[in-house]
């Protein structure tokens, strides 16, 4: 275990190996590949939020000399047959297909209806006017209340609510119900001296990655077709496209370009299958790009939510019961992160009696996708707001209140397992002694604090390390580098091999040059792919010992290898890694290490954030004046990029809490589909984001790593919400805390 261990490279702040290309503009992202003979695809999108397609007529387009190919839902070869093959994935695959191209019904504003390929992007866009669509416009369902109301229009006639006590008998917009419980919730509330019960809601928000979705595709009949795209998981793009197009995995090669942000939003397919169809039909390479408006209207934002929270505590601060009813918007197709929302909502607390009920609700908005700790920010926002209000009610400091009830090793979670060693208490103690928490609160400023929990995952990673005759090497991995992970891989391999990180070049290989890797997500890359890198490096160490033994004519057991040098234990001889590589020709050929793992033992990551907000009482305008993010990293391989994850997550959460939201007209038209009116935080909106790394090692990882990517977006919602509530002296129940909403509260108070 890593605790007492001294490291040479781990924990250093090295220069990332892909840095030079990224600061000089040489790095190639999703929209940066052009090929000879390439043509452009464009998509016709629904102007309505909810409508039946009475007629879809492409004949005028077909007749146009400008149009080289047309694609519609009809071009998914027997999606149903393909879906059959995939058994339980059937529904999911059908939904994916129907999201990529509307199937007789459009379910949200911007839903793709058809696509055209032409010689230029402008020509393709212009040619969309040649497609004739007759819509029968239906009433849109735009929020949870409308969706669950008795007379709500039904989006999917065949959808029945799963998970009810009694099996559902008629179609509903509620796709699923989940129930989790622990102890006796009624007895818990009966034992409470004080009870807080409140309702909260959060808006639809977008990951807001700066790079729009884009792809360049070449269909190939006599070999694998090539798909170039920015994705968090090129192996899953391959699998999805193969299922949709009824192809074998070997018939598709996906090259992961550099990726301009994802945060969970680049874990599925939108353009790739369409471009493949257009390329197949036209016999040309096809490039497609989403406009920023398309990205907002038709990619996968995060669920809007409604939560009801009830918490009871004794005057001594002991929480006796916590109860939640959570509704999540899934968008046009089922599958919101309601499940993880239910599982995480109360996990920061060690409480006897818990009850959580969750609902997955479809509405006429784009199908949601993962967004950093999917489901957790919405539910934990509600829980943390209520916890802060309860602490205030019984006159307890929010940190002391949390320490008294904090989840720790052995805490029985509501979703079943007992927690292993976790860092919540350590984070709370760090917050307690932080300069920020001990600084006085300035005038007109409110201070809020909140905790956050996320599981993190492990999963499949495959890595090959090749050493060159001069001792330099290549790390071939298959996890798209979305935030500097190449640097961490380099450092972990260098630590094991005892060489300079810069002597090992990490490559994110395409689907043909390395075995399957799970998507970069779930905060898994530095943990799981890092574990594979370590195993592959250890594989190499064993070979280096054997080669050195061969040189010295001793057994491998007589060879020790430390800090890049082999020592003959039965003599004075030494050989460096480079020397062993140089003589590899003599000792059996060149040296490669390999690991294919399905990593277990991912360590949950807890965080605590502190936020100071100033409010202009005459206008309701908010200003974040100080912010501190504290999180358990297990072990920070590259502290700068760990801090970066804390800071980036914190600022996305601040945006979610203050100004970000999808604005829809009553007809379901998105009115702010651009960065002008979908207001993500700017450099000038923010103070320094102080990042404090706590390290409570994860015993399952060779260096103690826990994932750090996701947890950081959870605490800001309630930290900001509470800070605003404190500043205006009014409870906050709805995000975002936009000025009109805050001013209304202020005026109502007078």
């Amino acid at each position, binding site marked *: 275990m890593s605790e007492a261990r001294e490291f040479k490279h781990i924990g250093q702040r090295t220069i990332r190996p892909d840095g030079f290309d990224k600061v000089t503009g040489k790095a190639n992202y999703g929209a940066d590949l052009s090929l000879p003979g390439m043509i452009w695809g464009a998509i016709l999108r629904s102007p309505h939020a909810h409508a039946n397609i009475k007629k879809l007529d492409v004949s005028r387009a077909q007749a146009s000399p400008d149009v080289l190919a047309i694609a519609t839902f009809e071009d998914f070869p027997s999606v149903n047959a393909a879906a059959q093959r995939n058994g339980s994935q059937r529904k999911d695959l059908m939904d994916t297909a129907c999201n990529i191209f509307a199937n007789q019904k459009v379910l949200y504003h911007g839903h793709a209806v058809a696509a055209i390929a032409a010689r230029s992007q402008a020509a393709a866009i212009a040619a969309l006017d040649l497609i004739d669509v007759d819509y029968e416009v239906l009433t849109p369902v735009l929020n949870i209340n409308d969706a669950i109301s008795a007379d709500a229009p039904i989006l999917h006639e065949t959808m029945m609510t799963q998970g009810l006590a009694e099996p559902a008998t008629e179609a509903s917009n509620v796709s699923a119900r989940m129930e989790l419980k622990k102890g006796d919730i009624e007895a818990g509330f009966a034992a409470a001296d004080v009870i807080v019960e409140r309702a909260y809601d959060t808006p639809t928000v977008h990951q807001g990655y700066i790079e729009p979705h884009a792809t360049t595709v070449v269909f190939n009949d006599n070999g694998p077709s090539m798909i170039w795209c920015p994705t968090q998981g090129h192996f899953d793009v391959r699998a999805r496209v193969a299922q949709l197009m009824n192809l074998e995995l070997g018939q598709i090669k996906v090259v992961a370009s550099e990726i301009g942000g994802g945060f969970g939003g680049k874990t599925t397919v939108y353009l790739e299958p369409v471009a493949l169809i257009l390329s197949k039909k036209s016999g040309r390479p096809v490039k497609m790009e989403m406009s920023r408006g398309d990205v907002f209207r038709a990619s996968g934002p995060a669920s809007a939510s409604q939560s009801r929270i009830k918490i009871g505590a004794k005057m001594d601060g002991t929480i006796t019961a916590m109860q939640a009813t959570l509704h999540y918007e899934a968008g046009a197709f089922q599958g919101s992160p309601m499940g*993880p929302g239910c*599982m995480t909502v109360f996990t920061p607390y060690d409480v006897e009696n818990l009850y959580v009920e969750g609902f997955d609700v479809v509405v006429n908005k784009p199908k949601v996708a993962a967004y950093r700790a999917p489901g957790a920010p919405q539910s934990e926002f509600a829980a943390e707001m209520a916890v802060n209000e309860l602490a205030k009610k019984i006159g307890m400091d929010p940190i002391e209140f949390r320490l008294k009830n904090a989840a720790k090793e052995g805490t029985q979670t509501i*979703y079943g397992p007992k927690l292993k060693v976790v860092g919540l208490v350590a984070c709370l103690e760090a917050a307690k002694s932080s300069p920020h928490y001990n600084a006085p609160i300035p005038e007109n400023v409110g201070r809020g604090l909140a905790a956050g929990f996320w599981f993190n995952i492990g999963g499949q990673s495959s890595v090959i390390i090749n050493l060159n005759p001069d001792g330099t090497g290549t790390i071939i991995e298959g996890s798209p580098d979305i935030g500097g992970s190449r640097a961490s891989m380099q450092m972990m391999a260098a630590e094991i091999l005892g060489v300079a990180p810069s002597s090992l070049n990490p490559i994110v290989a395409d689907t043909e040059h390395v075995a399957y890797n799970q998507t970069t997500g*779930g905060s898994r890359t530095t943990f799981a792919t890092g574990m594979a890198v370590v195993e592959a490096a250890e594989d190499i160490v064993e070979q280096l010992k054997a080669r050195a033994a061969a040189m010295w004519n001793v057994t491998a057991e007589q060879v020790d290898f430390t800090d890049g040098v082999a020592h003959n234990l039965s003599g004075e001889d030494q050989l460096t890694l480079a020397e062993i590589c140089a003589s590899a020709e003599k000792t059996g050929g060149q040296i490669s290490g390999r690991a294919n793992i399905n990593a*277990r033992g991912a360590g949950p990551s807890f965080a605590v954030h502190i936020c100071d907000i100033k409010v202009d009482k005459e206008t309701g305008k908010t200003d974040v004046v100080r912010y501190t993010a504290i999180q358990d990293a297990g072990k920070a391989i590259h502290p700068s990029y760990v801090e970066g994850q804390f800071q980036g997550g914190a600022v996305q959460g601040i945006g979610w809490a203050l100004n970000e939201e999808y604005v829809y007209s009553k007809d379901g038209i998105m009115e702010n589909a651009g960065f002008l009116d979908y207001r993500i935080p700017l450099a000038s909106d923010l103070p320094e984001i102080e990042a404090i790394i706590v390290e409570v090692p994860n015993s399952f990882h060779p260096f103690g790593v826990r994932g750090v*990517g996701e947890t950081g977006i959870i605490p800001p919602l309630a930290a900001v919400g509470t800070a605003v509530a404190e500043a205006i002296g009014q409870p906050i129940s709805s995000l975002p805390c936009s000025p009109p909403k805050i001013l209304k509260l202020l005026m109502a108070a007078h």
Partner: protein
Amino acid sequence: MALVCFNASLEKHAGCAHLTVAAQNYRALLEELTQRLPQLTQEVLTPLALVIDGEIVQEPFLADFSADAELHFIEKIAAG
């Protein structure tokens, strides 16, 4: 005997909150559970992750566990 704990949603199928099993690996566990609790079908269980003494195993096919292990089935965790 290992202890299997069902969450509220699974309890509906299982008809009980806890159950001790003789199985000491995932495949034997599936067999035993589906035999003893007919409502608890392969379709219900196989999409789930297995938690062994607090460790979430997303792909438990080859997993084994000790005779005194505590086991839970949970939704596989999605990724952001």
